């Protein structure tokens, strides 16, 4: 259900496997996040992702539990990369399956908001040989608030 890995993520293979596991679902939504070649400060040469196990995994598990409580899901998958990455590499793959397409869309969207603002990762971006630690943007926190994350956080405590 949750994989934290320093190996390349192949979303196509993950989707094929997820579909086979959820063939009776009806609706499957996936999100793939890739390292972008450009940031506000210029051309990105590398991105470094750091996790803190087992806090990272237990946090994601709780978010999946919250998603399962909010929506009627038949399956959820979260794969997140750590370590050194290059532009175009996949950072994260999220999949949600449900009988209802709205539930699948909302659950994938919710999990991404969690991953962006609450999941225990730190990101360092290298632009022109200068490495900078990147923290969530105001926009990310705003997206996350749509789900009443306070409530989600309360569930985690």
């Amino acid at each position, binding site marked *: 259900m949750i994989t934290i890995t320093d190996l390349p993520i192949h979303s196509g293979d993950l989707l094929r496997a997820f579909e086979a596991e959820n063939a009776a679902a009806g609706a499957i939504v996936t999100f793939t996040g890739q390292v972008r070649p450009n940031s506000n400060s210029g051309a990105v040469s590398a991105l470094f992702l*750091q996790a*803190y196990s087992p806090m990272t995994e237990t946090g994601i598990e709780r978010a999946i539990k919250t998603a399962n409580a909010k929506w009627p899901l038949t399956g959820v998958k979260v794969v997140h990369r750590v370590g050194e990455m290059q532009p175009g590499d996949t950072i994260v793959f999220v999949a949600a399956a449900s009988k209802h397409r709205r539930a699948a869309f909302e659950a994938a969207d919710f999990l991404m908001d969690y*991953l962006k603002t*609450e999941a225990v990762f*730190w990101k360092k971006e290298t632009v022109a040989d200068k490495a900078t*630690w990147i923290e969530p943007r105001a926009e990310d926190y705003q997206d996350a608030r749509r789900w009443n994350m306070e409530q989600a956080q309360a569930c985690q405590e």
Partner: protein
Amino acid sequence: MAKLLYFGRLSDLTGTTVEVLDLPDDIRTAADLRDWLDLRFEASGAMKEPTVRIAINNEIVFDADPVAGDDEIAFMPPVGGG
């Protein structure tokens, strides 16, 4: 021995991601530890920022919570993946 972990931008400040050491006897709480490390690393308050959360043995704690000499203590600036 306590194990201290510095994540994200804090590792640039401390020059390491992990250190194992004996805590001074007068450090009783997470807040005491923030103060001590802030001085020790000449961090100008960076270890004391409220957005930097502390996890002891994988649980987020409050500043008033106690620290023990054999804890794993993580200093966590704002998180976010994806």
